């Protein structure tokens, strides 16, 4: 029943597109490892596919509303999500431009900083939103919002996609910068753990604030 509620066509196609692109990235990595394709071609293709993945996920951020919480003001949260979606889509376009047209070394060295910059902007924006809610912003004076089951399910889908994307990005950045796959995976895992914990703390605080009202 839940899947019928949340799996509208755009959600389903985004999840399938994300998994498909992830599969193609894995195929390129395998082909590179087997020596079937040139490492330069594999790197360029990986960068282009990463750009597409970022656009696919970013496009749906405002629709699936990852910051939708009973304690946040819907209008403020909506604005933060729209801005995050646009930032991710522009980041994806930049990746495609870099890996499509710039020299590969330049693209590999510049892209992690473009990505970190974009993620920092989104993180700051969302932290500001959480801070406003905790300190009693616009939402505190109004009646509390009750999230529908559909909204909660959509939020879960988007959070999973964002964590998946972040893991792939961090692993790729480390490989692009230091050419060390094992260190890349290790750092990506730690970063996901840290971000996941931070996200859980923010939500626990928001939920406790909701219950005390």
């Amino acid at each position, binding site marked *: 029943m839940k899947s019928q509620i949340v799996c509208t066509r755009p959600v389903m196609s985004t999840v399938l597109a994300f998994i498909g692109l992830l599969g193609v990235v894995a195929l390129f990595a395998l082909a590179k490892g087997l020596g079937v394709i040139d490492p330069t071609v594999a790197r360029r293709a990986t960068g282009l596919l990463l750009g597409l993945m970022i656009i696919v996920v970013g*496009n749906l951020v405002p629709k699936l509303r990852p910051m939708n919480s009973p304690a946040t003001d819907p209008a403020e949260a909506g604005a933060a999500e*729209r801005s995050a979606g*646009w930032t991710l889509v522009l980041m994806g376009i930049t990746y495609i431009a870099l890996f499509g047209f710039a020299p590969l070394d330049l693209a590999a060295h510049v892209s992690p900083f473009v990505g970190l910059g974009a993620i920092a902007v989104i993180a700051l924006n969302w932290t500001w939103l959480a801070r406003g809610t905790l300190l009693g912003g616009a939402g505190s004076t109004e009646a509390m919002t*009750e999230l*529908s089951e559909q909204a909660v399910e959509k939020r879960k889908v988007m959070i999973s996609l964002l964590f998946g994307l972040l893991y792939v990005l961090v692993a790729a950045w480390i490989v692009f910068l230091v050419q060390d796959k094992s260190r890349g995976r290790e750092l990506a895992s730690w970063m996901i753990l840290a971000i996941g914990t931070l996200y859980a703390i923010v939500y626990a605080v928001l939920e406790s604030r909701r219950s005390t009202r």
Partner: protein
Amino acid sequence: MSAGELSDHFDVSKPTMSAHFAVLREAGLIGSEKRGKSIVYQLQMSVLEDALLRFARAFGWKLQASENSETKRLGGL
């Protein structure tokens, strides 16, 4: 906007509005949340849909366009 505020902008009955909201919600174009005693509706567009809307607006497309043409068409009859 709440359901009541939205209804004031259209010359249709509230049950008809509710049916339209249900279709839009099913299509994922709007989201609804219960806020106190009222239901608040919000437009939920993907970045691509948002970009297309901005693009269309930049070229002079307005929501009233179809309404005006409809009025003109009816006036001409």
